């Protein structure tokens, strides 16, 4: 199956002229992602400033998650990605994790037979190999404290937790890696409304504490309660826009 690259071009490559090189957390230029002959993202260009909460929104199947996959190195891409000024390696998600960009992926990608505690502490692997250092570290304590409802379940195998609890473990694991940018892909997919609200409350708290956020969401309404910046994706083309909190 072949799909032609969409004909439209990115209308506004950098709509935030106020963002200087010093405070640009993420700069994406001409990003394209393909799966075989199928083009999922075409020529996406946008920047995220340090401290921003950026929503990547758009209908299902239009390439939102693929943008995040390409940026974090989960899949190979064309185009340039800079994380705090450093050129990100293509197709190397480990590099991104070690340089401050951590992904909380769609469908969480936990380790189902390991305990919730082990899942979270493995986030620390991005910056240490010592389990002692990891246990006594700030990022790990912060990750555990943000989710008090997880405490009774920390010894439970992650695969046996509810969907909402698994999402919290995935976010906690991301936080334990001490990210400067936390990229969360569809955080509320399949969750009950009350749980989704709780997840968004936690994301808001993480943002308040100074972490730059990128949130992929199908529903812009929910995303814009949190985000001050929006990248709209249509047919694989990203249109950068500024959006005030709704």
């Amino acid at each position, binding site marked *: 199956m072949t799909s032609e690259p969409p004909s439209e071009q990115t209308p506004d490559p950098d709509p935030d002229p106020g963002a200087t090189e010093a405070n640009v957390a993420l700069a994406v230029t001409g990003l394209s992602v393909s799966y075989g002959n199928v083009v999922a993202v075409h020529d996406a260009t946008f920047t995220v400033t340090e401290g921003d909460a950026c929503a990547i929104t758009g209908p299902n199947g239009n390439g939102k998650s693929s943008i995040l996959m390409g940026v974090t190195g989960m899949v190979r891409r064309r185009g340039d990605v800079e994380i705090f000024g450093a050129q990100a390696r293509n197709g190397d998600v480990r590099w991104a*994790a070690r340089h401050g960009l951590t992904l909380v*992926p769609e469908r969480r990608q936990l380790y189902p037979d390991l305990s919730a505690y082990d899942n979270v502490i*493995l986030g620390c692997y*991005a910056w240490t190999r010592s389990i002692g250092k990891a246990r006594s570290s700030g990022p790990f304590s912060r990750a555990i404290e943000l989710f008090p409802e997880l405490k009774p379940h920390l010894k439970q195998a992650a695969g046996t937790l509810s969907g909402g609890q698994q999402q919290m473990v995935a976010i906690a694991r991301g936080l334990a890696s001490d990210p400067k940018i936390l990229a969360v892909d569809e955080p509320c997919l399949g969750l009950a409304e009350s749980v989704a609200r709780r997840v968004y409350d936690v994301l808001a708290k993480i943002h308040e504490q100074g972490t730059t956020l990128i949130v992929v969401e199908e529903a812009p309404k929910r995303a814009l309660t949190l985000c001050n910046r929006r990248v709209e994706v249509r047919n694989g083309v990203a249109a950068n826009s500024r959006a005030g909190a709704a």
Partner: protein
Amino acid sequence: MKFGNLVIAGLVTGSIYAVFAVCVSVWYRVSNILNLAVGDFAMCGALGVDNLVRVRNWPLPLAIITTLAVVGIFAFAYDRIVLRLAQDGPRRQEGIVITFFFTFALSFFIDGVAKMLFGSDVHAAPALWNGQSLTWASLNLPRAGLLVLGCALIVGGAFWFYIRFTLGGKAMEASGENSLGARIVGIDTRRYRMLIFIGTAVIAAIFGIVESPITGYTYLSGATISLTGFLAAAYGGFRKPGRALLAGLFIGILEALLGGYVSAEYGDTVMYAILAALVLIMPRQLGFESAVGG
């Protein structure tokens, strides 16, 4: 004290099974591939050292170091050339092909090369701890057997400690549980697969060297060892090295007791019947359902 001596003999044999079961399950845990060639690495260790010492008159320490180095380098090359293409390349294989096929083929390859290099006679590496069996309250404790048992406990204990108490051990587990999820937090899953493959190959070779004075090896011995290690690993659902170690010891003791009390001739047949019955009666408790269901 027939019973006591049979249990000791069973513990020695069982510890051999246990070590290979641990090697199989630890590597399966990190790579989702069953190492059906683990016994062949043991055979290479035993016959390699024997060949260098007996035929080429090398000193024993040098022969051991050289053999282990060759096994390690071969395992490294196999991972780099075959496993990378099979599991990481653009045409990567999945399912039963990757789980069994590549190490099964490796087993045949090693057997063929070993036949050319070492012939088809029974040989053994020189005993590392010579002398008569130690005796204690009419129990016979063969020195080579004690060495094997001691090594098994060290290997089992080391893996248990590594997995339970280190971040590296947990990262190793995460690599096998969810490769994508592991890479997200910076874990190099390919490196873990390679290191554990080389590590278990070298451990198997060491055990071949230590154990071969008890049983003697031919170029075909590897397959039998792999099979029993595989069986014991299956009792741990292929993912629990601690349980695999206990299962290996249990199978060894059961084999010795059946050989001593039931029939030396049909002991193995009865043992496999008992093991099969156990699987049928309590598959979940023995980890078989999780092994099949993933």
